[in-house]
């Protein structure tokens, strides 16, 4: 009898303890499109997750799944994470937008955060960074540095995010050097080192001496290093292992403060659906060290451009600007509104080639 009572007490105590623990810890899940070791996009999100663990310690439990394909597989992965009791789930690729919304409708009590999307629900927020601000800085350096006047651009998928980056880089490269020409290759992948390396090689063979990339691996940097006199920029992450040449600067995504703030909001019960789009100013977009391979005056100009965007004096999409077909877009001094930028599906005047559908 006593034994039974002891056991029962123990069981109740255990039950209380575990439910108390469950209340104390907030479970945060991450769905990644690439491997955490890609050295670029997913790597930086993973740094955000690690920062979350460090900041909250035992109060938070994190789980992640890497290399999740965009499409049906993503929906399954997100649903699994919700079923496993995650309180907050970050889905970190544009292609996860519809799967995130589909799962969010089934789990109204779970909070979802989708990176780079534009659709929300009461329990789905979106967040993204104004990478185009960083691309303006890169475009400027690229335009000043190129000697062949041919700049190669490895693009991933024809979505507004990528098109915005191409336009921003092109506008500022042209301002720095009116003779600049862009050659663009659509890789149709975020992450395929062999294909990215081949694309970079093809661009270099066609005369490009600057390679810009919107794919996640460091393979283009390696190809540029092999070719010799070609410069590149780190994408999403610093890619410091290729300093000081070929990588002369980088755009760095910094998700840490955002992840900590949103997890705190879930803990406090103050989480609300919102749309965050921050740039260089609040520090969501960082410009990696501009190396000595860049002449001092170009470096000063690039940093001034960065500063002007940070304090709001300058917007990368300021008129006069025309669209590729020659029609007017922005009048003198007019600034593009966020709606147009978020849905951007056209090249600006001067870019050649068509955007694939």
């Amino acid at each position: 009898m006593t034994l039974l009572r002891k056991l029962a007490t123990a069981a109740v105590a255990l039950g209380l303890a575990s439910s108390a623990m469950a209340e104390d810890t907030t479970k945060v899940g991450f769905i990644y499109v690439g491997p955490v070791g890609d050295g670029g996009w997913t790597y930086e999100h993973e740094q955000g997750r690690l920062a979350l663990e460090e900041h909250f310690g035992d109060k938070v439990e994190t789980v992640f799944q890497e290399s999740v394909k965009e499409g049906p597989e993503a929906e399954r992965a997100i649903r699994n994470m919700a079923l496993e009791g995650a309180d907050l789930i970050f889905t970190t690729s544009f292609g996860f937008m519809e799967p995130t919304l589909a799962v969010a409708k089934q789990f109204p009590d779970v909070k979802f955060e989708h990176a780079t999307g534009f659709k929300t629900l009461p329990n789905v927020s979106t967040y993204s960074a104004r990478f185009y601000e960083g691309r303006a800085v890169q475009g400027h350096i690229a335009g000043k540095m190129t000697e062949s006047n041919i700049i190669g651009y490895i693009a991933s998928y024809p979505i507004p995010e990528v098109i915005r980056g191409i336009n921003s880089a092109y506008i500022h490269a042209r301002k720095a050097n009116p003779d600049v020409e862009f050659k663009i290759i659509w890789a149709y992948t975020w992450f395929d080192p062999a294909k990215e390396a081949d694309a970079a090689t093809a661009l270099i063979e066609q005369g490009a001496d600057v390679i810009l990339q919107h794919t996640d691996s460091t393979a283009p940097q390696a190809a540029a290093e092999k070719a010799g006199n070609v410069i590149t920029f780190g994408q999403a992450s610093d890619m410091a292992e290729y300093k000081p040449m070929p990588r002369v600067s980088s755009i760095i995504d910094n998700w840490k403060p955002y992840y900590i703030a949103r997890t705190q909001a879930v803990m406090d019960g103050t989480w609300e659906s919102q749309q965050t789009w921050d740039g260089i100013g609040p520090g969501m977009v960082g410009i990696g060290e501009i190396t000595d391979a860049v002449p001092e005056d170009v470096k000063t100009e690039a940093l001034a451009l960065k500063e002007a965007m940070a304090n709001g004096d300058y917007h990368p999409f300021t008129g006069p600007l025309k669209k590729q077909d020659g029609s007017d877009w922005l009048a003198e001094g007019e600034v593009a509104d966020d709606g147009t930028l978020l849905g951007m599906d056209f090249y600006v005047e001067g870019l050649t080639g068509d955007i694939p559908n």
Partner: protein
Amino acid sequence: MDLGSINPVLLLASLMVAATPILIAALGELVVERAGVLNLGVEGMMITGAICGFAAAVGTGSPVLGFIAAAAGGAGLSLLFAFLTQFALANQVASGLALTLFGLGMSALLGQGYQGIKPPPTDKLDIPLLADIPALGPILFNHDIMVYFGLALCAAVWAMLKYSRAGLILRAVGENHDAAHALGYKVVRVRVLAIMFGGACAGLGGAYISLIRVPQWTEGMTAGAGWIALALVVFASWKAGRVLLGAWLFGGVTVLQLNLQAAGSALPVEYLSMSPYLITILVLVIMSADKSRAPASLGRIFRASQ
């Protein structure tokens, strides 16, 4: 469109590089299939070779040791397949698929800690005088040693299968394992050796990607090259020369489509992206209109009778 910006010499030179990994892996699989074994684990063995070669090259600072380790890694993994199919008499298709999944997982595990590291560079083999010939020089005589290894391997496999006694035995085992057994040939031994050769070749092909073509280590970096090698063997109707043609076609169209994009071709990108697969298969299917066929014992389990 500015086709003038495509340099045919550089294009043909990149073709040789792009074709090499699938060529080496496909030649290995060709030998395996001519011995009557269907090993669908090429992708798994390639990625295993990629990480084994990478780790060894980084650890020792020598790309040559890296390639040796890659061959050993691929052959080692293939032994697992050999054990399952030749001794445990397991189904070859299922075992091969399992080998691919196992190789992908194991390479990801082994690769922890090798991300973001640069491997030692493999020197280009500038053949004096020959490399200076205009046009032909850069295309043919200015590559790393593995490109030549791939070509030599192709010639060696062709000659071995066609003229040597070992090749004759291998083919006999692949065509009719019962007859070969009755004649006193060691069917299982021949097949295990062929499987190991295939594994070593796949490993070398994988290491070519991680040490020379990309060069870095990332999970899943072979990205389907093993499956392309497998398909090449079938479409090339189990002939070494056609495997070479197929690898060049596939590598060439892959590089060409990227170049066409960069040159601003009017063709839609989607068509360009699928063109390497379509063109390679089409050409090889047309070429295989003759009576060549698969080895008769391909994929069949051999049970030694008395």
